[in-house]
């Protein structure tokens, strides 16, 4: 089977589609050979992430149902670490918040404008779930196409300098060398390379920073850049879950406890997020019961649900059809990857904070940023599930019954969040 571009948002020619499919297969191959257990003295040393219960693509003849692994993309870790109100302040803190905390496969940016008095106020929120790997793939093989995509998203045609830091025509060499250079430069300018696989990056991307340095995807929002919001990270966590994780029981194997699974797979931070436990649960449930999974076509992170009715303007709730709710980058409901929410620039006197978040409390609050918008979003990944077949005794993975793990609010990542909070509060209240 051939995967189409995420959300069927773009029309790709056959060559580009092949390249996109190759990118997906490469990540499966790369992570499939990684050891399954991430702890010292694992129960089995020969287990790899590759799983007979997760295919790199579904068989063409499958009629299995499509299931949705879905979650709220509002970042949970900072809420646990510093509380709801401070988490909101930090996540809404521009590029720093995006790069540090938007860890649930959705990133946002707040567009600000000046009002009549000259005060800078939030005007709109832009949210994206677009995978940077897809953009990078297109950019490597078809600069004109990626510029067309960027134009659609931005509303203006970006310069080659903004996209690549150079005119593509000035890049010379063999076709393969040219592609690599295009990829390197686009990664540098627009996508970064993330953190999930830094040690295994191809040589031409070794010197590319984790986060992009160009202005296009820093000051604006083209696709996700958070270090773990990438296709490889998604595939890795899906493969981690898709094993028959079991505990020995008197009547045979039973599903293993989640914390026992997390303990042997990842750090505690993963259990403190919303999305990763969803993937582990979906994979374990399928594998334990002998079902197989694959990414459904087209693979991507999609905005599956949005509840704008809790936002009120001039005492009327907004709804899905309101022209301040603008979805794009996807063919139809359930396949959208981008949301712009808020009044357009033509309404010069109306701002985002004129919208009231009416969540039932006695004092409804103004809408000030993306954190409140994410709360009303549901995002997810579609998976094809087929089978079942029987699970052979040797296929069960036994993570042990140790449930000990670091509480989320004491994890290392929380230390990073607290550090960020410290910096934030120093900015707010300069020390004398």
């Amino acid at each position, binding site marked *: 089977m051939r995967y189409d571009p995420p959300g069927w948002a773009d029309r790709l020619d056959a060559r580009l589609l092949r390249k996109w499919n190759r990118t997906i297969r490469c990540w499966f191959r790369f992570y499939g050979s990684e050891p399954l257990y991430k702890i010292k003295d694992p129960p089995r040393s020969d287990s790899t992430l590759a799983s007979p219960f997760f295919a790199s693509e579904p068989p063409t003849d499958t009629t299995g149902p*499509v299931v949705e692994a879905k979650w709220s993309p509002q970042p949970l870790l900072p809420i646990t670490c510093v509380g709801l109100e401070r988490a909101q302040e930090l996540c809404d803190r521009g590029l720093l918040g995006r790069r540090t905390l938007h860890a649930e496969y959705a990133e946002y940016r707040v567009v600000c404008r000046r009002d009549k008095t000259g005060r800078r106020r939030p005007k709109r929120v832009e949210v994206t779930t677009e995978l940077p790997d897809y953009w990078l793939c297109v950019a490597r093989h078809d600069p004109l196409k990626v510029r067309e995509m960027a134009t659609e998203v931005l509303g203006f045609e970006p310069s080659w300098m903004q996209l690549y830091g150079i005119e593509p025509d000035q890049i010379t060499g063999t076709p393969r060398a040219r592609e690599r250079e295009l990829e390197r430069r686009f990664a540098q300018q627009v996508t970064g390379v993330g953190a999930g696989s830094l040690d295994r990056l191809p040589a031409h991307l070794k010197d590319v920073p984790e986060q992009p340095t160009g202005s296009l995807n820093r000051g604006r929002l083209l696709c996700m850049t958070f270090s773990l919001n990438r296709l490889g990270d998604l595939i890795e966590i899906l493969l981690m879950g898709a094993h028959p994780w079991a505990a020995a029981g008197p009547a045979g194997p039973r599903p293993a406890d989640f914390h026992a699974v997390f303990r042997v797979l990842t750090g505690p931070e993963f259990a403190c997020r919303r999305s990763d436990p969803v993937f582990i649960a979906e994979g374990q449930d399928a594998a334990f019961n002998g079902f197989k999974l694959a990414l459904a076509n087209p693979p991507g992170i999609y905005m599956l649900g949005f509840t704008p009715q809790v936002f009120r303007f001039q005492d009327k709730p907004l709804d899905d059809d309101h022209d301040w709710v603008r979805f794009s980058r996807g063919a139809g409901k359930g396949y959208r990857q981008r949301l712009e929410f808020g009044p357009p620039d033509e309404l010069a006197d109306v701002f985002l904070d004129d919208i009231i978040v009416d*969540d039932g409390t006695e004092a409804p609050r103004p809408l000030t940023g993306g954190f409140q918008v994410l709360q009303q979003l549901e995002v997810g990944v579609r998976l094809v599930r087929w089978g079942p077949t029987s699970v052979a005794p040797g296929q069960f993975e036994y993570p042990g019954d140790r449930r000990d793990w670091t509480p989320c609010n004491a994890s290392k990542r929380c230390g990073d969040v607290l550090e960020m909070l410290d910096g934030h509060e120093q900015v707010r209240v300069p020390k004398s």
Partner: protein
Amino acid sequence: MGSLQEGIYHNCSNCTGPHFTVLLLRAVDGATAPRIGGLLGRLWSVYQNLKNGVVVDLPGQRVPSGELRVLVGYGRNVFTRPCVGRRAPPELLRYGFASPKAGSKDPVPIMPNSGIRYDEDVFDNPAEADIAVQFTARTQIAVHRPIVETWKCLRDLQQDPVERERAAAEQAPVVPLEMAGFFSGHQRDDRRSWIDFHDGVNNLRREERQAAISIKPNADAGWATGGTYMAFIRIAVNLTAWRALSRTEQEHIVGRDKLTGAPLVRDGQGKGRPAPGCPVSGTSDVLQGGNEPFREQRFPELLPDSHVQRANNHRRQAPEFRASSRIYRQGFEFLEPLDTAPFFRAGLNFVSFQDSPERLHTILTQDRWLGGRNFGGDPKPTRGGSWLLTARAAGMFLVPPVVKDERFPGHSILGY
């Protein structure tokens, strides 16, 4: 870290009886948190005595306690009282219920975008209380007696000359709490609800409950770790509207076969049919042994607009994780008399426990959950324009943990 209060059925030693009341107490004007705490401490002693069969007006006598269990919760209002000892957890403030509005043209949703609205004649929500006390027991008298004993205690205090003198000196109310109301209910041994369908089939398993409902360590209210949040909604059911629907319509709204309780799955045409093989051979009901796999409804082919699908939209996720939005429901049906035909009101005391009120908020308000839906099916009133479900009261309460050396759970909130 403290532990969960009693009255929540999360392990064998915490079995709750089938009878229920919830008492709602409201602070009067001028009441300070320490004064509320003093009175609540006194009431707590009364309730502990009742657990031992000791009634204040029957010295030396013992009455059956009915295995009474008492749980106390705190609404957001109590955190606004003077001299309060703790800051309200932001989640309690953010994910509360809306107030009914007197004079409103349309019935007010209990939460924005919730399809459940306050009844047309509800202008004052008694569950917007400072304190809720849940009583569960094996007998009806055991859950009714604390209501009367509470009244006695408040009345005795009101008439106590020493207290009156002290209150006058402090320019404070003699009795800082008043009863805002109480509601009672009972469980059913047929495990069905008034709409005749099975209810609570897909509730959390006992072993899953504590992990889903205990507040995890957090930065907002670390002192509440090990406690939980209790939601209470008194829901009236419009049986006239319900019975105007055909059995097929009812089954599609609920997502179950009315007789056997088998979950409905989509056939090739998208219509519902009972899950193949349910109930298993030799049984006639989904609750009978052997049908366990059909109770959790992990089928991807469930009817997308049915109540069972929308009430548990993230069904394969581990309940302890917030993304699952799983809650533990401990509901009690009710039937109360009315002065006019049909001379009764039937319904459900919806009681749920969760580690964050965000979970219930998601279920009741989000588009792909029950947001905009009154119960299931289309987001519209049933035939004839009336709503199937309406709320008589709705409240969210922090249920603090039991902490060693605290006089009663949550004493520290009241600034002792």
